[in-house]
């Protein structure tokens, strides 16, 4: 039995009123309340146990509800995800999309907007934050900045997207320059202005697109330090095929994927042997995947050479099954072998809203349709597609070092100044506008309606979104502290326990893998 102040207050109020009722008129009408009520109240308190910190309970409930099926089947992987979310505020933001969605239902992420377009859903990433954008090496070997994560891609209110992106930028400013407190303070002081610049760029681009401007491909850094760095490193690694060096070894003239920990600095990132039954199902999945590509290569090019289970990658998708798959490439020469990443796909988490509530026939269809629509060209990554493997929906994409993702940790030095961050915000705001200009239902684009709403007061739009993003970033930071506290007090799965001993088949548990113990936070 436990008790806490809130329930005690309520119990106390009840005690007073009942006791009074029993002694109306100075006559005792039954047994003494002091004898009867304490055991009763204790029983009620114990049974209706309520958390003392309401927001903490809310955050815990939402996260556990979102992860419930995974918590029942692979609790160790979810524990790893929670540990990672606890170690960093930005990681909490990345893994906290269910909390964002929950809050949206309550207050539309920061309250209703003057610029809302009621009844409008746009093709959106669902989780458009800094680290879900990056470079993709297209079919003609050119690099461009594109959205690179479609786990949550679906149809969303456009302000959901704008505010989530800007919130990520505010957090990025506050968390940039990890080793330089003075630079971090300067960036943090400019966080709201950075968000404002991102919103203004979004508004300007939407206006241009509505006026007929083409959906541009972002294949140049445009003098922005963060993007200059990204493109420079991407081009270098595209030439060197750095991923082959990092993830594979050549033995007796044959290339194979490494096992173990590829990077000692990241002990939770582990490559493990893939169960035989899982590997045996890969050729069929690869052939179906090959046929789904816009320009299918010859079957031999995707011949399976090796595959490993990858653990400890991503944040929101930490608990998903993820593989690295080594395929033959155009020739038998080990130098042109290629690596694919295979990842489990789940539902987007979008709430349906307008009928029919779902917009795709299945999960692979959702990913393929949304990515092709949002990219500047269908072959932004010519090997990015989706299919099924072992009965699960999966995404396959090129794993190469040229496909650099924007990273918070790179925002330091000349890349962490307020000016550099503002330049990044402008680029991402414009890119998000381009994403929202993708054709929706019936091939229509929504930018004209967004542009009309924003045009009422473009400055006011930027101000409102920057203010909302700043407040939302504060809320994320407060939630993170509550989350860490809950993890400490309730355990690695936030107190969730399966009621039955797990009886999953051995093959299934073997596939989920055996993650290393999470690092402390």
């Amino acid at each position, binding site marked *: 039995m436990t008790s806490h102040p809130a329930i005690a207050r309520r119990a106390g109020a009840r005690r007073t009123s009942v006791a009074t009722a029993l002694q109306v008129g100075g006559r005792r009408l039954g047994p003494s309340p002091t004898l009867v009520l304490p055991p009763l109240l204790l029983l009620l308190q114990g049974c*209706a146990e309520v958390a003392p910190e*309401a927001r903490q*309970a*809310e955050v815990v409930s939402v996260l556990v509800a979102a992860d419930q099926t995974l918590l029942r089947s692979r609790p160790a992987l979810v524990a790893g995800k929670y540990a990672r979310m606890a170690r960093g505020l930005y990681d909490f933001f990345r893994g906290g999309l269910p909390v964002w969605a929950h809050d949206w239902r309550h207050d539309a992420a920061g309250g209703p907007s003057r610029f809302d377009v009621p009844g409008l859903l746009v093709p959106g990433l669902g989780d458009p934050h800094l680290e879900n954008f990056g470079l993709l090496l297209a079919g003609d070997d050119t690099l461009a900045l594109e959205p690179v994560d479609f786990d949550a891609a679906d149809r969303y*209110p456009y302000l959901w997207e704008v505010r989530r992106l800007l919130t990520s930028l505010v957090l990025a400013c506050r968390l940039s320059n990890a080793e330089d407190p003075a630079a971090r303070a300067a960036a943090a002081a400019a966080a709201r202005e950075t968000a404002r610049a991102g919103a203004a760029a979004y508004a300007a681009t939407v206006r241009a697109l509505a006026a007929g401007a083409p959906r541009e491909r972002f294949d140049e850094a445009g003098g922005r330090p963060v993007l200059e760095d990204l493109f420079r490193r991407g081009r270098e690694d595209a030439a060197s095929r750095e991923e082959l060096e990092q993830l594979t070894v050549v033995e007796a003239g044959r290339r194979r994927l490494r096992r173990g920990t590829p990077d000692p600095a990241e002990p939770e990132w582990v490559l493990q042997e893939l169960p035989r039954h899982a590997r045996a199902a890969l050729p069929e999945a690869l052939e179906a995947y090959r046929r789904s590509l816009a320009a299918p290569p010859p079957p031999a090019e995707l011949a399976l050479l090796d595959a490993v289970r990858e653990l400890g990658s991503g944040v929101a998708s930490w608990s998903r099954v993820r593989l690295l798959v080594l395929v033959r490439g155009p020739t038998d020469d080990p130098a042109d072998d290629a690596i694919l990443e295979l990842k489990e796909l789940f*539902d987007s988490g979008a709430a349906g809203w307008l009928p029919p509530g779902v917009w795709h026939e299945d*999960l692979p269809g959702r990913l393929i349709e949304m990515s092709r629509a949002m990219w500047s060209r269908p072959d932004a990554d010519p090997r990015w597609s989706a299919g099924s493997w072992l009965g699960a929906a999966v995404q396959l994409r090129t794993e190469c070092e040229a496909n650099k993702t924007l990273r918070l940790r790179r925002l330091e030095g000349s890349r962490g100044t307020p000016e550099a961050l503002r330049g990044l915000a402008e680029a991402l705001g414009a890119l998000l506008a381009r994403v929202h200009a993708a054709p929706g239902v019936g091939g*229509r684009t*929504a930018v004209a309606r967004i542009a009309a709403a924003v045009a009422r007061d473009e400055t006011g739009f930027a101000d409102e979104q920057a203010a909302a993003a700043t407040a939302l970033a504060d809320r994320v930071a407060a939630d993170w502290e509550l989350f860490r506290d*809950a993890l400490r007090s309730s355990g690695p799965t936030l107190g969730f326990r399966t009621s039955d001993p797990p009886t999953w088949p051995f093959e299934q548990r073997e596939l989920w893998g055996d993650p290393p113990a999470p690092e402390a936070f």
Partner: protein
Amino acid sequence: MRRRSQALGHVVWLAAAGAAAAPATVVAGTVAAVDAPPNDAAGSPAADEAAGTAAGAARGWFGGGIDLIAGYRSTWTTVEDADPEWFHEFELDRGHGWVEAGWGPARARLLAEATRATGEGALVGVAGDSVVLRLREAWAGCELFGWGDVAAGIVPTLAQPTLERGSGTRVLGASAFERHGLLGPADLGASAALRLPWVRGRLAVALYDGEGYAQRELNRGKSWEFFAELRPLGVVEGLGPLVVSAAYLLGSQGAGSSRADRVVAGLAWEGDRIGGAVAFLWLWGVDGAGERQGWAIEGSLRGAPTEWLLLAARVAHVVRDADDEQNRLTEAGGGVGFRPLEPFEVWLDGGRVLAGETARAASPGCDQWWLAARLRFRWSGGGP
């Protein structure tokens, strides 16, 4: 009093069991006029004196039934150039089938309902997104010497089914309380009821997991429901259909044990040809946010001017955050029904949902008109 089929004899018992009060014929007439009682019947399987006598007379018995509402529904968003502006679909608003049995004072019931395999917006469910059957009630219980009864399993909750029965407008859709997740119709737990024959009412208490019948238990907290249903004028001729009910729920929700307390009060006129109800609900804890408070009110009217003509109307106002007056939905709808041949009813209904600014931004498309055509089939047989 209009003619009743033999099948409705069972309705009499079940309605009486739920109402636990009024003369069985009156209650049955009420519910048969517009709405189906069996699965809308109040919480515990409490029976009134008449039902108790009937059950005692037939020592062993077996029964069952079907309540099916199928329809075609068109919706139009009120936003110009929304995407899409309108939609239409065939739907199964209710698909209930139940069996029940008794032996002496013991009784048990299984009620299956049809539901979509996924939540809103999801693609992955059972065999795609099939309509599947799940258990909504599965309880065993016992009558206690004519004074009350107890039941355990997946039991109907106490307040929500009583309010729905009082409203008698289920054919227009589930009540706003239920659709918005403010009150649930069933849960895993146990309930006990005590009859109050002198006021033709009952007192009941139930203890549940608190997550509803569609969820596993996620926390150590259990939810109490204290309930009273009275017919204060039941002994006055002509005023028997007046029902007053009230409940207090002391609960928790979700893995984080968020507060989920509710106070609900209802007033209903469960007349034969004319009925109506109004219910008010106050919430401490909304949608897992324990500190948030909200409230809702719902009113309904129904009538059966002739044997074959039925009318129903309903208005609801739901405030999901008492601190944000724009986080609200107001719903108003009404319909006209025809009963060409029992157990069939054909309905045409329409209405409007008006959303506050916050609700409209958070749920695009919730502000809408609707028009629906529905076919209802109700049948039950057997029984004590």
